């Protein structure tokens, strides 16, 4: 075709060739929901603690989550994945969780961060395992992205620990409750 050499036609079908669509669908849907929820959690925390001494720390972590969400928005469009119906729910639940734990104080907010980031890192590790079992070559780009995000979530986790998350009253109870919630959220967002 004339002029075809210089112009690379980007068919929107290209990324979809030969991938295991059900698996990739789930991966992207749940990760998108997760980053969306994380965004809302930090937004809730900022609403309460924005002007406190941990404000800048939270804001920085929030900005990183915003980048993550942006990336998953792009992937969602590229792979034509349906977002979870529960998004409006995660919108509110995330904000409430963030604001609620922030009302427990700075340590409470950090405890929430630790709990959530630990859940997310575990979850990303599971996904990395799944994709490696499927086909590490085919999903190279996706694997790279998830690995990078997992590392950044682990950083957030460490920041939370540094800021005395473990000194929160009823830390283990709070942490367990939040992580259970995260597990449920992951389970549902993969499917619905």
């Amino acid at each position: 075709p004339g002029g075809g050499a210089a112009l690379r036609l980007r068919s929107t079908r290209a990324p979809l060739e030969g991938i295991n669509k059900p698996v990739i669908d789930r991966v992207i849907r749940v990760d998108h929901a997760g980053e969306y929820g994380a965004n809302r959690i930090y937004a809730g925390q900022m609403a309460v603690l924005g002007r406190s001494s941990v404000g800048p720390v939270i804001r920085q972590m929030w900005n990183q989550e915003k980048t993550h969400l942006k990336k998953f928005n792009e992937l969602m469009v590229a792979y034509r994945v349906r977002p979870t119906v529960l998004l409006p729910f995660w919108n509110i639940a995330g904000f409430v969780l963030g604001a609620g734990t922030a009302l427990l104080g700075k340590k409470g907010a950090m405890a929430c961060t630790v709990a959530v980031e630990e859940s997310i890192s575990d979850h990303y590790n599971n996904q990395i395992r799944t994709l490696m079992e499927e086909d590490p070559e085919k999903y190279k780009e996706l694997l790279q992205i998830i690995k990078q995000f997992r590392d950044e979530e682990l950083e957030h986790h460490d920041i939370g620990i540094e800021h005395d998350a473990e000194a929160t009253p009823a830390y283990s109870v709070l942490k367990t409750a939040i992580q259970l919630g995260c597990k449920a959220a992951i389970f549902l967002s993969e499917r619905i």
Partner: protein
Amino acid sequence: LRCQHYPPLRALQASAALSRVSDEHKKEPLTSPSQQQFDSHPDGHQPKQEPQGPRPSYTGQGGQESEDYESEEQLQHRILTAALEFVPEHGWTAEAIAEGAKTLGLSVAAAGLFHSDGSELILHFVSECNTKLSELLEQEQKLVQLGEAEKKPTDEFLRNAVEARLRMLIPYIEKWPQALSILLLPRNIPSSLSLLTSMIDDIWHYAGDQSTDFNWYTRRAVLTGIYNTTELVMLQDSSPDFEDTWRFLENRVADAMTMSNTASQVQSTGEAVVQGLMGAAVTVSN
């Protein structure tokens, strides 16, 4: 896995015999007993690849042809395609399928491969139409990317896509009400729903929808509503070249656009009001 080539006629006669036996088990799709029969042969039948199991996949493309070998699914595909020619005369029935099989040089017993209510024929037709629509939209997209065509505004794009898809019904319009009622049988609803949703998703995708929030659902729900109502209007339309239907479609799409504009206006007004109130609160507290 290299498989024995089963001459189609023998396969059909075997299936036909089986179908008489399996007629009592009306709930099973007729293809599965025959599938199991073939699988028990030592030089087995090519196993079905698609994730949905033994039932022919209506939502994807048929199997690839490798050299001489034709899978059962491809054969059924060919028979159903040939049968479409006879639908205007015989309706979506086993007669049409039998006639189609005859034109391919096969025995009329081939109709026994399929359900007597014509479900597979209709689902096949819908799947083919959807594929044609996707290809049309893909072509259009290429032209726009090459700069040989203008990008259409969303309402025009949606209108054209729905019209193009509905026009594919025109040769079969007399018998389409029958088809719709069969598509609504509980047994067929998973397949017909899946075909409908993937078609609507395709249209929005090519229209350039990039929503990743709840809008994704709203837009598809609205377009599904537009498509279904326009289809029903078309069934009762006797105007020349269905111009009443296309006018109805235009109005519905315009309504949808207005609704979405109003919704975003309401949202931004709401946001402005909230900001105003916050400002007032801050002022009062100072």
